[in-house]
């Protein structure tokens, strides 16, 4: 127990006068996984950035093997064997896998030229240790996010990292890829790497961690071996209160049709889609990664091309391929990729909040400051946004709070149809139950909601009805009663993977291959 690989002593950091970390001490032992839990904005990413030298602490020290690291020097941290897998990966997309693996420490032939053959061979060896099939000659861009992440992990550990900081590594990858990530993390633990692992998912903490530390409001409130703490205690430490009714009660749906989609041909998919959502109804969209859920939502909203079909909202036909017209008819889209597609990170909360309904906040083109400050402020208040004020740049908010901005900015006006794509990805438990509450309340107020999600409990507990998608088409429909039946997960999986109900369990290999293929396709866009 005495071989401490990395130690943080009394780390403190404030941004613009606001304290984010208030003296946090923490030790990571070799060959162990420490889970770092905490609400959105608790300071988890900041902590990791300090440990890896990207951010300078105001106070405190980071020691590797007893040696203090110079502050704010990522190269020094790297030399001492501290590697970080950030929340947003930054591989070089147009280079090959083996090139990415050997960047900065290229192998050379005796003549001093690049020894590509040796690098490719060595790359295969490195990746084989992880037990994953990745072609070293593949271009990074063509790999699914999950595999890109493994390449990044392989890169840092094969470079001799003894401490690995993983910031929400599972938030951008599919369930199947998570299993592979687990295997890799366990393997690294055997090799004696010390790991700090941030996640918002309790299952992951249970599956991987030896120890849990919890940050709340910049302070360390819990640090215990995993076997000495219950799930409830972890959640309690995170949010400082008991969490009741994780999934709120569903209100009965209305009768009036809010959204009707007829024969919608989404560009790139062969078969047309029909669906109907009533006022007050939450329609879940399930399916494997690459099943075309995101594409369908985008096509309904008009940001992805559709070639044929009719979309009507409250009886009025909406122009296809025109997000502006969709918004006019009261549609709202909360996209999956909040940094890439949701928020304009360089703008502040107020401007992001005004953007979707600019015309409502202007008089002859001029912004009505008072009016929009009031409306946007109220919308952000309704989701309990934690920010330094409406003037804070959205890029400096924590991940979960960015998600709240992306959702709440629609609530400055009336919404008939709310399209949600993975609404709780990367969102902490407290905020997640809040987002569930917001979604059910919005539905209860008469909104129609379509929610695409890879989170099974979310689909099962939150939707009135669910569609399972495969290859861009609706493969099956599940009523509220179906969703309550005990074997529903199996049903969904079979529909999603395209298996008939009567096949034996030995056909399990098929969906894996299919899922991988689909995932590759999706991420290639």
């Amino acid at each position: 127990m005495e071989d401490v690989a990395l130690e943080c002593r009394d780390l403190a950091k404030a941004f613009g006068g606001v304290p984010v970390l208030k003296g946090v001490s923490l030790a990571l032992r070799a060959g162990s996984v420490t889970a770092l839990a905490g609400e959105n904005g608790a300071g988890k990413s900041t902590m990791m950035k300090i440990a890896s030298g990207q951010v300078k602490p105001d106070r405190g020290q980071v020691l590797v093997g007893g040696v203090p690291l110079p502050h704010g020097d990522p190269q020094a941290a790297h030399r001492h064997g501290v590697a970080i897998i950030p929340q947003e990966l930054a591989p070089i997309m147009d280079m090959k896998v083996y090139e990415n693996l050997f960047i900065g420490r290229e192998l050379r032939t005796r003549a001093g030229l690049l020894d590509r053959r040796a690098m490719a061979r060595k790359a295969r060896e490195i990746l084989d240790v992880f037990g994953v099939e990745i072609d070293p000659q593949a271009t990074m861009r063509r790999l699914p996010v999950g595999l890109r992440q493994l390449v990044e992990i392989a890169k840092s550990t094969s470079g001799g990292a003894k401490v690995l900081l993983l910031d929400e590594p599972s938030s951008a990858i599919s369930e199947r890829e998570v299993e592979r990530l687990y295997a890799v993390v366990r393997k690294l633990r055997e090799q004696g790497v010390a790991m700090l692992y941030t996640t918002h998912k309790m299952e992951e903490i249970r599956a991987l961690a030896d120890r849990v530390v919890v940050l709340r409001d910049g302070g360390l409130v819990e640090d215990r071996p995993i076997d000495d703490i219950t799930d409830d205690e972890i959640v309690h430490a995170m949010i400082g209160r008991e969490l009741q009714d994780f999934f709120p009660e569903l209100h009965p749906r209305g009768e009036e049709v809010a959204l009707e989609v007829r024969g919608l041909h989404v560009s790139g998919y062969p078969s047309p889609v029909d669906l109907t959502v009533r006022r007050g109804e939450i329609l879940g969209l399930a399916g494997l990664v690459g099943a075309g859920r995101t594409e369908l939502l985008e096509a309904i909203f008009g940001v992805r091309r559709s070639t044929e079909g009719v979309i009507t909202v409250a009886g009025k036909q909406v122009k296809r391929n025109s997000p502006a017209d969709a918004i006019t008819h009261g549609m709202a889209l909360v996209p999956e990729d909040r940094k890439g597609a949701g928020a304009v990170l360089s703008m502040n909360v107020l401007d992001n909040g005004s953007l979707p309904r600019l015309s409502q906040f202007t008089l002859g083109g001029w912004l009505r400051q008072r009016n929009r400050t009031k409306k946007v402020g109220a919308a952000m208040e309704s989701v309990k946004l934690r920010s330094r004020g409406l003037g804070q740049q959205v890029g400096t908010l924590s991940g979960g709070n960015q998600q709240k901005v992306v959702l709440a900015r629609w609530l400055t006006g009336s919404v008939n149809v709310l399209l949600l794509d993975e609404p709780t990805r990367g969102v902490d438990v407290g905020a997640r139950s809040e987002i569930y509450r917001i979604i059910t309340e919005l539905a209860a107020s008469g909104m129609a909601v379509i929610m695409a999600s890879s989170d099974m409990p979310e689909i099962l507990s939150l939707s009135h009805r669910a569609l399972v998608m495969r290859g861009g088409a609706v493969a099956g429909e599940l009523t509220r009663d179906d969703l309550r039946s005990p074997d529903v997960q199996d049903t969904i999986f079979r529909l999603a993977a395209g298996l008939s109900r009567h096949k034996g369990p030995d056909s399990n290999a098929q969906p894996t291959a299919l899922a991988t293929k689909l995932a590759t396709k999706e991420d290639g866009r």
Partner: protein
Amino acid sequence: MTTQESATRPAAWHLSWPWVRDQLIRHSMVVVMLLIIAYFSYRSARFGTLDNLQTIAIAAAPFALIALGQTLVILTGGIDLSVGSVIALSAMAAAATVKDHPERLWLSVLVAMLVGLAAGAINGFLVSKVNVPPFIATLGMLTTASGLAYVVGEGAPINGLPQNFGEIANNQIFGLQIPVIVMIVGIVALALIMKRTSYGMRVYAVGGNPVAAQIAGVKTTRILFSVYALSGLLAGLSGVMLASRVISGPPNLGEGYELDAIAAVVIGGASLLGGRGSILGTALGLFLIQTLNNGLDILVVPAYWQSVIKGALIVAAVTVDVWSAKRRV
């Protein structure tokens, strides 16, 4: 607003050293500017006079217009390399219109602006609709417009223009020359538009994240088109003012001006990746360059040394800005 975090902001009048240091770093560009002004004032009695201020303003005016257009283009993440030769083309068009026809004075201004607008619209169409990279589209326009300027003049300058053509650049209103007034109005109007109108916000949004802007209902192609069209229009206006100043139409007018305009925008703190920058920053950057030109002229520094000093100072100014931006985190 919503939670506890709003209480702890340092009051603005709190005059402690960290606060002063913070302000100095934040407004490093203004500090550099003041240092330069102080130096020139010390070296030359003429530099600080009102007369000289007007000289600087007159020299700045044609640059100001294209730098304003360039700011919007750069905010969207693009670049407009064609403004220099669009100046030449519109100046030639104005000169050809007004030659032997003094009564067409205002028509010539209109023609110059329309020519500029047309060139900008072509850029905008190529960038927003055809998805040609801005660098390529406007580089093409740079060459084309320059060639056309020579075509209009049949390979030579258009001289012998009516004397009243000179009034545009040289007449005064309230003691200020028309180009200076146009510049001031332009800066104030665009600064207001970018800060206070939905159009301005849309430009920032398209530059900051085009996908997110589109999902929020912003018609991104329209915004992109508009900034190039505006840049062209302002280049046209700049062209006719320059031609009026020399009462002729030289086909090489405005050559290389695009670089000074881009420099002004970048010195003003804009990011070439889009989404970050401001009109007032550009105005500041512009005056930094023009003050430098003027001061070095007064000190009779040889032209080639002026180039060297200017280049070095531009890099130094931006370095300070980048460094201070890092310090702020």
